[in-house]
């Protein structure tokens, strides 16, 4: 793979193309899988297996009236949905899909991912605030608190991996897993990172900023047309991103037995995690807001600190 050394612009274009299409395809996959798990039919009319629903959905989003409420703060209202897409797409820059297929092999790759995911919180906060609507504001405040809190656990849980690999570089982290995938020694860190990832992408069961049954879609209730589409696509790219990160950090990235090329292993693992995200949505109820916060600060934070201390001690013990 390495010898081929694909063209740099080809990689960038390829990553962009694949990610945007995966996000669109996930809409269909999610509906079909939800229907399967909840014993319904799901979209099955347009085209083979209802596949054309993607085209119909995107066409609808493009041609819907793009309405900006007169009471909204216009520049911020327009800016908010762009931030989510930009920050998620930028995060894909540091992900090593296979040996040689990575846009930027940054030494601080992991920190770059954390930085971009913390920028993503702005889209919710600003979107909810600029809508100038009580429900949106409630959603935005919940979103801000949830994302800031869970970012803390996310970052701390990742430090266990950094300690074991001795690097922030994602490629080196994958290469350090050639003996043993990190999810075995870092099982606690993996579980906490995954929960924090769900909270960070505000997906069910932790979709408290949206919570359609109590907040009528929360921070994006005033959005329509392609602005809403950006939030929508951003969410699906967000779960793809978290799946990619879980695979890279804990499940050996592109590593796997030799009979399949590395990129295929990566795609298989990511697809498995995407399915878990959808299965969670199909099966879990939403916790109350204060329960989410208490769970985070009273259970996850001590556990992450414990995990970090034990990992550091073991690493030191093995070295010395």
């Amino acid at each position: 793979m390495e010898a081929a050394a694909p063209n740099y612009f080809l990689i960038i274009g390829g990553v962009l193309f694949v990610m945007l299409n995966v996000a669109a395809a996930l809409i269909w996959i999610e509906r079909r899988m939800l229907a399967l798990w909840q014993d319904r039919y799901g979209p099955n009319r347009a085209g083979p297996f209802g596949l054309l629903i993607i085209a119909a959905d995107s066409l609808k989003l493009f041609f819907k009236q793009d309405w900006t409420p007169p009471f909204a703060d216009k520049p911020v209202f327009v800016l908010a949905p762009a931030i989510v897409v930009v920050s998620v797409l930028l995060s894909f820059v540091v992900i090593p899909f296979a040996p040689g297929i990575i846009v930027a092999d940054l030494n601080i790759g992991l920190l770059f991912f954390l930085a971009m995911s913390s920028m993503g919180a702005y889209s919710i906060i600003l979107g909810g605030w600029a809508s100038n609507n009580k429900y949106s504001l409630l959603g935005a405040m919940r979103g801000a608190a949830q994302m800031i809190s869970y970012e803390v656990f996310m970052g701390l849980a990742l430090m266990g991996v950094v300690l074991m690999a001795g690097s922030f570089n994602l490629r080196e982290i994958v290469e350090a897993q050639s003996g043993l995938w990190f999810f075995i020694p870092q099982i606690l860190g993996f579980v906490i990172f995954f929960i924090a990832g769900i909270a960070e992408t505000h997906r069910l069961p932790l979709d408290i900023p949206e919570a359609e049954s109590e907040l009528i879609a929360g921070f994006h209730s005033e959005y329509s047309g392609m602005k809403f589409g950006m939030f929508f696509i951003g969410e699906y790219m967000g779960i793809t991103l978290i799946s990619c990160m879980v695979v890279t950090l804990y499940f050996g990235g592109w590593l796997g037995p030799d009979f399949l090329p590395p990129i295929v292993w990566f795609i298989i693992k990511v697809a498995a995690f995407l399915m878990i995200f959808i299965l969670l949505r199909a099966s879990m109820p939403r916790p109350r807001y204060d329960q989410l916060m208490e769970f985070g600060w009273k259970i996850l934070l001590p556990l992450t600190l414990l995990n970090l201390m034990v990992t550091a001690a073991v690493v030191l013990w093995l070295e010395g």
Partner: protein
Amino acid sequence: MELTFYIAAAVATLATIMTITRYNIIHALLYLVVSFLAVAVVFFTLGAPFMAALEIIIYAGAIVVLIIFVIMMLNLTHEDVEHEKAWLTPKVWVGPAILSAVLLAELAYIILSPDTLPTEALVAVDARVVGLSLYGPYMLGVQLCGILLMAGIVGAYHLGRQKKKVVHRFLQPKEERSAAI
């Protein structure tokens, strides 16, 4: 690389000026975020990628979000923006502006005078170097920061402590319920 530094520095300066002069406080904070991002790029071009990442994660990603979080609760309206405009008269800002101009002139003089030019070449400061200096010569500072943060947490806990509220009267203990009736 040098051009990126100058562009980022210019963006940082402009964004900071915009932060100060905006009347709408959320717009001001947005410019503050841009300013932090630009400073992160400056760090990056100067060979400190670790600091650049921390700048974004901590300042742009956490602290400004917390400030916005507080401001959202204040329910600012268009009238508040008008008030802000009325309050910000030249009488208020001329004094500090003159003093800052003096400082700026001094800073420019120091930077431009030849004997303050950096004598050694730039070295990349990565995470390892930052960690070694934090837990080596600056150990005391790290511990003092820890104590300060601990005090902050204890204070916040004390201020935010509430008696447990009962969600429903049937969940109250029996004697309290009869007392309430």
